[in-house]
């Protein structure tokens, strides 16, 4: 695990240097490496694919504009997640109802779920998804980043702009809440 992170870190450093030189191939590598993750994260904060894609696009435009100032204080992935979280949270804040009761809509819009995927989705997944939606925003953010995107506590702290102890505490409370919710519905 540690070796893997070191390798990724070195690769990231190489990519950052290439990006700062304006290397389009490096940018394509970053898009391929992080694009799916950013899109997946954005989908969690939007209710339609168009919005999620917009956010992904905004993240890469922001990356393009800010990579010159990036000094490697954090991993490239963390840097990207921080940009992504900023855009996702801004989206949530500015989201207004558009003739649709958004509060009653699921976090993952039905249009994302093809019939095949819906059929494959297990009851457990549904229960987990439902439980995640009951968490507060702060708790859900850290669960998404840590459990679903594999960020370490330190990376979560960096991406969310909070102290490491806050991440630890939020995860603890989020898990306690999740277990309570899932415990209630588990036969």
């Amino acid at each position: 695990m540690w070796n893997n992170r070191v390798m990724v870190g070195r690769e990231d450093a190489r990519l950052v240097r290439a990006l700062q030189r304006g290397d389009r191939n490096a940018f394509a590598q970053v898009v391929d490496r992080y694009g799916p993750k950013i899109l997946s994260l954005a989908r969690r904060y939007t209710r339609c694919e168009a919005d999620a894609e917009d956010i992904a696009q905004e993240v890469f435009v922001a990356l393009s504009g800010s990579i010159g100032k990036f000094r490697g204080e954090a991993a490239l992935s963390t840097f990207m997640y921080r940009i992504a979280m900023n855009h996702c949270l801004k989206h949530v804040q500015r989201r207004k109802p558009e003739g649709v009761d958004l509060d009653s809509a699921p976090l993952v819009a039905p249009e994302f779920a093809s019939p095949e995927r819906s059929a494959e989705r297990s009851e457990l997944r549904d229960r987990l998804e439902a439980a995640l939606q009951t968490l507060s925003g702060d708790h859900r953010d850290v669960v998404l980043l840590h459990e679903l995107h594999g960020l370490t506590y330190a990376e979560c702290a960096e991406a969310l702009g909070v102290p490491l102890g806050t991440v630890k505490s939020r995860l603890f409370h989020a898990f306690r809440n999740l277990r309570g919710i899932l415990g209630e519905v588990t036969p």
Partner: protein
Amino acid sequence: MSEDLKAFVDGELSPWRRFLLTRKLSQSPELRAELAALQKLSTELSGLRSTESLPADLRARLLQAAPSMPSQSVRRPTRALALGLAGSAAAAALVAAVLIRPSLTTPGASRSESSKTMGQPVPASESVADAMSAVAPTLSKSQPEEEMAYASARSTSIQQAMKPASSGADVEDKGRVALSAIEVVVTISRVEVERRVLLAGGRRLDNASERFEVPRARLPALERELRSLGSQRTIQGMQVQKSLRVTLLPSD
């Protein structure tokens, strides 16, 4: 359950605290059961991780944000609230039918039929350069900046979409790249209906009725989307009747 226990599961505990917790675990069956429950929930949650790749068209858009070309901002026009045009969520009914011209599916053969219907020939460009020049009017400087950015992005994506044809990968289309315009008239009562159309068409509609150009390479995708939309009876559990009027128009 303690915060340390969760951190232990995640491998985030300092060596000293890990040592202390390990001792406690060895003495407490309840704590071990707690640990197992946390590990189980972590494993279950990791099963929600997405393994999907990027849609090809989105990847192309993202690539256009490359730092070496900062002027090529590819922001699509923000969806200004077109979505309120439908009026109310209560009015879930849309009118009409989906009329998709045959040329959507058989690009080469349908041109004459399209011409009969529309009374005008649909121009076909013989090269990417010609095709690009057909798009050129959309890059008029009289357009707002945002629209310009979009038009620029669109022309680039059109260029990319045409690469297979120009390189001979698609024998049928080799050397024959036509741009068609599609008029989409949509009466919408649900946000999702409109958005799906927009995704397929490659842009958003800001009015209930709007004409926009679609590169021929993207027409099959648009057709599939429209047909799918036409057969969809419910959206987010609401019964809806959809109505799209789609007509191929000649590009001007």
